[in-house]
């Protein structure tokens, strides 16, 4: 661990990527993530690694596809409209089983929306987003510390399973400053060897990185192979945090920036002796279905809090079933639910 430093979320994710052994970063400016691209434009060059400001988000993700296919740890970052443009490349990357990291510092939408924090890209992040049958590992930090940690985790997970991984952040996390302690850098010499990578065929047969599979049952078999990988991830990589859940009458479920105000509300209720708890998914896919199902059985009501008009709530409803009522508090258009909003809503349903 390094000493604690005060850092902006966007920059902390850049620093963490360098420490994780990211050898090639490809970016394109968009608010509210531009500090990350700016950070990389200096630090990657200083480290003798690859930095390119691409001509578009589409080009950036396809450069990532190339560097990932070459076996290098690689990353791109953007915000909601830019991440939409990257979906073509993400789908190819998933199909070709290339490890890669994509950061989404979400802003308001649809369309150009605004530049304020939002969580309107939950569906896009957890359902694949591009064409075809695939998933992304989606990690949702709620602090600058977690942004740094989850970026380093994302590189490990992407390599382990050969799937793209996404950091699902938002404009508030990207822009705010908090103390952060970085893990020690990973040595480039100790990164995993990738026998499938495009490095020239010296001493071996030709390697091909592709997603096309014409004719016969080839694609069906490939889809089923991917499904098996996704099942392993669902079994092994679910991550969440619980606060005061065991005896909760009202169980709040929230992630990212929205969850910060929920923690404040839970603390206030507990001081008053009211039994309110929080489950905070740290992985949006794989989603923590099991713990939500388990806790829902002993709680009176569930409250989902999101910075959208209701996306994660669909997954919560799948987990809960019909026995426990699921209520919703959401703000869209770049507005964040406050502690008081949450307290009022809980009092209303309690």
């Amino acid at each position, binding site marked *: 661990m390094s000493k604690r430093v005060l850092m902006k979320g966007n920059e902390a994710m850049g620093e963490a990527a360098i420490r994780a052994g990211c050898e090639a970063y490809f970016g394109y400016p968009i608010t509210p993530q531009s500090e990350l691209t700016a950070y990389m434009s200096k630090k990657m060059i200083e480290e003798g690694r690859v930095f390119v400001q691409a001509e578009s988000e589409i080009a950036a993700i396809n450069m990532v596809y190339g560097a990932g296919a070459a076996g290098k740890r690689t990353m791109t970052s953007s915000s909601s409209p830019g991440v939409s443009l990257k979906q073509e490349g993400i789908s190819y990357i998933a199909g070709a089983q290339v490890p890669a990291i994509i950061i989404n510092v979400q802003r308001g939408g649809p369309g150009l929306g605004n530049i304020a924090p939002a969580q309107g890209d939950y569906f896009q992040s957890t359902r694949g987003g591009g064409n075809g049958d695939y998933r992304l590992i989606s990690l949702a930090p709620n602090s600058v510390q977690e942004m740094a940690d989850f970026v380093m985790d994302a590189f490990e997970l992407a390599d382990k399973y050969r799937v793209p991984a996404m950091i699902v952040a938002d404009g508030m996390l990207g822009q705010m400053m908090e103390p952060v302690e970085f893990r020690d850098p990973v040595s480039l010499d100790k990164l995993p060897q990738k026998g499938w990578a495009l490095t020239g065929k010296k001493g071996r047969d*030709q390697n091909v990185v592709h997603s096309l599979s014409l004719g016969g049952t080839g694609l069906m078999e490939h889809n089923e192979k991917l499904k098996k990988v996704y099942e392993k991830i669902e079994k092994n990589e679910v991550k969440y945090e619980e606060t005061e859940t065991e005896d909760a009458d009202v169980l709040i479920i929230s992630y990212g920036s929205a969850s910060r105000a929920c923690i404040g509300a839970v603390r206030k209720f507990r001081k008053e002796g009211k039994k309110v708890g929080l489950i905070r998914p740290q992985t949006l896919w794989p989603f923590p279905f099991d713990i939500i199902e388990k806790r829902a059985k002993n709680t009176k009501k569930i409250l989902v809090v999101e910075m959208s008009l209701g996306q994660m709530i669909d997954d919560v409803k799948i987990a809960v079933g019909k026995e426990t009522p699921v209520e919703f508090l959401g703000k869209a258009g770049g507005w964040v639910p406050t502690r008081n909003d949450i307290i009022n809503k809980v009092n209303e349903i309690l």
Partner: protein
Amino acid sequence: MKCVFKKTESMTENKTIYCPGCHHGIIHRLVAEVIDELDIADRTIGVAPVGCSVLAYDYIDVDFAEAAHGRAPAMATGIKLPQKDKIVFTYQGDGDLASIGAAEILHLANRGYNITTVFVNNAIYGMTGGQMAPTTLEGQKTATSPMGRDIKIHGHPMKVSEILAETPGAAYIARGAVYDPANVSKTKAMIKKAFQNQIDEKGFSMVEVLSTCPTNWGMSPLESQEWLKENMEPFYPLGVKKDIDQEK
């Protein structure tokens, strides 16, 4: 016994799926011969995007990536920059390179990265069934210009090589054809130079090769060759468009 001719080492045993009279097979062979002559097969990585030649890896025996439509220059950038000792080339058609991938090829040329592009121009989208491409000639009938390309509606045919020759980052831009032995040999020399430039780290090099598409042009292979000579070649003149070695 002296060996006077042998199979191109870097061509696989696979039979190509290209239509009779299509020039992809000849151009693949030229690329493979150049790779062998320069002795770079062990460190060469090809990038073939969506189009008839997306399966180029079945025929040219080097490491290969399959790119999205138009994105080969971006993908090649990602492959090349972290491993600059490798030889990276893209093999792209005109529907791909001149239309959906116009931004990617222009910026690759402008950045002047040491990457080689083989650009096969048959004035049409082949794989999807003969639709109009940016390179389709004025008046040319296609699946999506059944009355012939009207430049008032569809704009002008794009001379990509001439456009890219204007970018300072481009080291070598040339246009060849493969409809007769003399042109095959000239075009091979162009492709060889475009790869040699990368070995010598001179910058971006591209060879455009005029090609037929008998199936989608609705002609026999021989008629296609004649049509190319009479119609494409006057509009897309052969020759070197830019060579930084000649400018010095």
